[in-house]
């Protein structure tokens, strides 16, 4: 293997092993910052040794062992905690005596450790953007440079964000644990929020020109799928996975050859990825099997599933979609849900009724700079033949959006309405 080949092979090993190694070390040293440093040190040793010696047959076990030796050295040097030191030495001995097989994780605790790692990196003491960066780094095994490129943010900014996040977790003594009881629901929703933020950042980039940054979507899906396979079944985890799988199934149809947005109702459904749809529907079923009190992700996944099941746009079951939005509005009342509900109502009962549903939203401060409100109003007005009003709404929407593609699209609709007026 050439130098670059081995480098890429080591990167690949790291992608697979990072979360497990960092999680196991965090459990031992009770400090994510230190654990990640130790894991990185092990990676550096690998980068020095493997090009000459070849990649060991069990690279994960090798990294774990090397990192644990580093941890032991660290405790010897600092000698802060001799009990910890003994415990660690004992664990290391055991690890060295048993030869782990190639496939099964090195110890049963690993699944739990990774779950703890996800909960700590998505902890609410951190800002949303820090949670996203830290999670991609320690759970996803991405380099700072990869995260920076994905978020179109300079690398030093991301690096600093991660360093600060780790310090904050240490300063606030955030425990390395899976929350229990009432705490669990709130903490889990923080985790799901982070994963969905990563997905959406990829799916509908909030800034810049490219609409879909596939790698971020894939990363979010991977994190979601990992979470769905850890025990303690939570319906909302499957709900989110289902929602992401079904949304991702439309990636190919969402943008045309010129890179322009294609609306859901106008998409070529033959381009939808049927495998992802099937996976999405299965995830929705798993969620349904766990609860009758459907949560917000589960309901959104159900709505996405309605679209996925319709062979043509005309075959869409709008009655069912309106009912799901009604339920969603009860579970999480928000002006954005109301806006989406109005769109569904416009398909089910016509644009007139929908337009009246939007009235209360016009005064809502949360919607003041939300471009989709004038965009939807423009669409309803155009369908009612009120073209001059529609043109004004599309122009307002175009001025609000930060996405260049979307702006072009909205200005085009404004022009068409102007021509019809």
């Amino acid at each position, binding site marked *: 293997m050439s130098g670059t080949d081995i480098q*890429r*092979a080591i*990167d*690949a*090993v790291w*992608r*697979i092993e990072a979360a497990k190694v960092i999680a196991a070390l965090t459990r031992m040293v009770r400090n994510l910052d230190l654990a990640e440093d130790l894991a990185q040190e092990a990676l550096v040793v690998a980068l020095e040794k493997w090009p000459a010696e070849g990649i060991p047959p069990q*690279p994960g076990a090798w990294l774990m062992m090397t990192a644990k030796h580093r941890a032991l050295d660290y405790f010897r040097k600092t000698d802060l905690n001799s009990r910890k030191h003994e415990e660690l030495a004992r664990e290391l001995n055991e690890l060295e005596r048993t030869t782990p097989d*190639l*496939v*099964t*994780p090195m110890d049963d605790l690993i*699944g739990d450790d990774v779950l703890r790692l996800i909960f700590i990196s998505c902890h609410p003491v951190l800002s949303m953007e820090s949670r996203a960066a830290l999670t991609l780094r320690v759970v996803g095994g991405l380099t700072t*440079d990869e995260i*920076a*490129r994905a978020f*179109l*943010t*300079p*690398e030093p900014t991301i690096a600093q964000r991660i360093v600060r996040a780790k310090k904050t977790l240490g300063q606030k003594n955030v425990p390395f644990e899976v929350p229990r009881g009432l705490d669990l629901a709130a903490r889990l929703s923080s985790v799901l929020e982070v994963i969905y933020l990563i997905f959406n950042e990829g799916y509908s980039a909030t800034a*810049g*020109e*490219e609409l879909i940054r*596939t*790698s971020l979507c*894939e990363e979010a*899906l*991977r*994190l*979601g*799928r*990992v979470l769905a*396979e*850890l025990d303690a079944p939570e319906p909302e985890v499957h709900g989110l996975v289902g929602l992401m799988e079904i949304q991702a199934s439309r*990636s*190919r149809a969402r943008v045309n*050859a010129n*890179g322009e947005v294609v609306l859901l109702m106008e998409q070529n459904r033959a381009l939808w990825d049927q*495998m992802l749809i099937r*996976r999405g529907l299965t995830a929705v079923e798993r969620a349904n099997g766990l609860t009758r009190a459907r949560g917000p992700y589960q309901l959104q996944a159900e709505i996405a599933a309605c679209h996925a099941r319709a062979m043509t746009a005309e075959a869409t079951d709008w009655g069912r979609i309106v009912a799901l939005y009604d339920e969603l509005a009860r579970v999480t009342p928000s002006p954005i849900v109301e806006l989406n509900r109005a769109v569904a109502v416009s398909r089910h009962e016509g644009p007139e009724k929908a337009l009246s549903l939007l009235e209360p939203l016009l005064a809502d401060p949360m919607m003041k700079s939300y471009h989709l409100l004038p965009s939807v109003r423009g669409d309803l007005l155009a369908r009612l033949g009120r073209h001059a009003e529609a043109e004004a709404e599309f122009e307002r929407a175009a001025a609000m959006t930060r996405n260049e593609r979307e702006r072009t699209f909205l200005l085009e609709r404004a022009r068409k309405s102007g021509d019809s007026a």
Partner: protein
Amino acid sequence: MKFMVIVKATKESEAGVLPSNELMEAMGKFNEELIKAGVLLAAEGLQSSSKGARVKFAGNSRTVVDGPFAETKELVAGFWLWQVSSKEEAIEWVKRCPSPHEGECEIEIRQVFEMEDLSPAMSERVRRKEELLRAQIGQK
């Protein structure tokens, strides 16, 4: 990116010999690891080619040839579909796979076409855009 990971046939698999319990168990464990890592999208094992057929195309004619087929080592005995971040990651996972048959055999790794591979004009545009963005955010 997605990869199709193809298990090639052997004389035994073509003869319809079922995998041993040990192998089934090891494979089950491996699949479980793939699922837990969020990598596995789909997986199937194929029956021997004697239960299959080929349809040959030549102009307007269609000729059906029933199995079995001779070139055993080139036949497909099963496949996975994985979502990974690089070909190297796919290779790394394959190396962890238990040997899919007793004796010598082969697994082939093939990348699945994505939208951008199919539309070169667009990927060129995407590439130029990314260069521009990188320049804007001060990266090499």
